[in-house]
């Protein structure tokens, strides 16, 4: 068990190209489940591979448990990795797959078998499967074997590179909670890469949001949701995504949907201090409350997505801005073409700099 530390870790693939990972600073605590999340090309997988030793660093360093491992070969870093496509050895049995690393370490056969069986039990893998070849297993079983191969090693750090992306939706949700629960039980520091923000939010103790090779924010899921530091994090975290509209400033508020939406004093003064004539307003779908004609902003319902418990309303605003999405009670949602108005609480409003994307707070 160990903490992991990235110190200005940088990776440049091609000269003249922007770095794939740009001076990443990240502290991962002992036993923590850290999720790296971001769109493709954000550098999250590269960051993970740098920790694994599969990708050299062009600057900075990586530490595992106070030991600088920047130049240590992958096998000596005491880590285990679960790959997106599992990377199981096709010619080896499940047991041999799981025990291969131990064999390489020279662990005696009896001990090896004991640890493999123990890992299989931990993962609910039937003992009968241990003699099969990977291709005789279902996708879910393969995923668990890949997990097992990592567990058997009893490493200091687990690295997982989108381990659920090859599973179907239902199994993914199920396995998601199993992995989180397993990690809690084993207490092994885990770095988990995903592009799926729901996965990130549900699994991680903390989530590091990356974009364009740069760390945008690292915080607990709740903190990311409630206090995104910039427009990117605000738009990336939360489902459906936050409604973001670039709107002109008006006296006492911002002009949206043909009226003036009052803004909190802190935002107004921050906008004034930055000398802005417009800003980006962010409202989460769940913060647009239907108001029966008495709300601040209104528009026409273009599309209703019924989710069961909720319904998502796609609404064309009266001011002609791009449509917004609102979450409404699922039981009796407004119909298509209906005119609706929303009430927004001032505390729920986010505002961002239209150029830099930074959060505007007083």
């Amino acid at each position, binding site marked *: 068990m160990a903490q992991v530390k990235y110190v200005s870790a940088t990776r440049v693939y091609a000269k003249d190209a922007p770095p794939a990972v740009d001076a990443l600073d990240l502290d991962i605590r002992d036993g923590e489940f850290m999720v790296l999340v971001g769109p493709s090309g954000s550098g999250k997988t590269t960051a993970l591979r740098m920790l694994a030793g599969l990708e050299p660093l062009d600057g900075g360093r990586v530490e595992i448990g106070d030991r600088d491992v920047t130049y240590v*070969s992958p096998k000596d870093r005491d880590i285990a990795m679960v790959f997106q496509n599992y990377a199981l050895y096709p010619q080896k049995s499940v047991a041999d797959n799981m025990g291969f690393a131990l064999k390489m370490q020279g662990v005696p056969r009896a001990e090896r078998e004991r640890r493999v069986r123990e890992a299989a039990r931990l993962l609910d893998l039937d003992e009968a499967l241990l003699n099969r070849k990977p291709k005789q297993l279902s996708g879910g079983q393969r995923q668990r074997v890949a997990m097992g191969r990592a567990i058997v090693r009893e490493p200091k750090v687990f690295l997982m590179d989108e381990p659920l992306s090859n599973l179907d939706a239902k199994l993914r949700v199920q396995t998601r909670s199993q992995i989180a629960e397993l990690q809690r039980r084993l207490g092994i520091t885990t770095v988990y890469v995903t592009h799926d923000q729901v996965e990130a939010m549900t699994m991680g103790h903390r989530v590091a949001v990356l974009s364009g090779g740069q760390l945008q924010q690292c915080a607990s899921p709740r903190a990311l949701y409630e206090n995104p530091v910039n427009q990117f994090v605000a738009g990336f975290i939360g489902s459906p995504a936050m409604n973001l509209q670039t709107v002109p400033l008006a006296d006492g508020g911002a002009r949206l949907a043909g009226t003036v939406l009052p803004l909190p004093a802190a935002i107004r003064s921050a906008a004034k201090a930055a000398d802005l004539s417009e800003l980006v307003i962010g409202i989460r779908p769940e913060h647009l409350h239907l108001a029966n004609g008495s709300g601040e902003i209104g528009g026409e319902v273009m599309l209703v997505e019924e989710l069961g418990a909720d319904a998502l309303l796609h609404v064309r605003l009266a001011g002609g801005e791009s449509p917004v999405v609102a979450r409404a009670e699922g039981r009796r949602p407004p119909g298509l073409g209906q005119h609706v108005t929303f009430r927004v609480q001032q505390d729920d409003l986010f505002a961002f700099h239209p150029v830099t994307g930074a959060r505007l707070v007083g």
Partner: protein
Amino acid sequence: MTAVPVTPGPRRLREMSGRAGWGILAWIVAIAFFLPVLWMVITAFKPESAAETWPPQFVFKPTLSEFRLVFSGMGPFLTHSVVATIGSTILVLLMGVPAAYALSVHPVRRWRDGLFFFISTKMLPIVAAIGPLYVIALKAHLLDSIWLLIILYTAMNLPLAVWMIRSFMLEVPKELLEAARLDGAGRIREISGVILPIISPGLVSTALICVIFAWNELFLALNLTVTNAATMPMYLISSVPQEGLYIAHLSAAATVASVPVVLVGWIAQRSLVRGLSMGAIK
């Protein structure tokens, strides 16, 4: 599925006749290729007197006398061929695997040049090299020696084998090699424990092609050996006497010489198809 047309529509008819046309063409081509082989096998069973007649005789009393004659004389030739073929193929695989590894999985510096060098050796007509080869063999006291053929056949097949094995190695998923590295496998273990089991069908097909090329090779054997290392193709030539009838004898010898290659090919058919169409690794 309510209205099943009783007669095929014109478009469907055209499709069917088109397909039939291709089918017939394929048969014609196949027969054209196979006919000489069939002729050879049939002739091998004829007595010499019936072999070379016009019009050709289709009704004859089959005899094994020519085969008996062939078997009585081919012992040493067969041995030389087997030794040269198997020996060179083993050497090709032993050297080809590491070479292909160094040109694919962990490419050495300037691997492109290396790769081109390998294939460029196949571009020179072998006739142009026979003079120097002869002199070298003479000075090295290797003329008419089986070692010479083993070395030459190895050199002859190695470039092709490196290219083939390399292409198979490139198909091995990168993540598997990375998993092996994380698991602590060194280079040797990576090759023997991870790569080789995966590309084994490819290795079989590579070996098979090397076997066929070495077995059928005539030019080098003819020019650099006389008796101590003369191979089966040379035996075929020696079956042609200066005078007299020889077609039946030659056919019998040729049939015998073809059997091993056909047999090996037939046995390795499955892995040959798998090997030549790799990519089904997942």
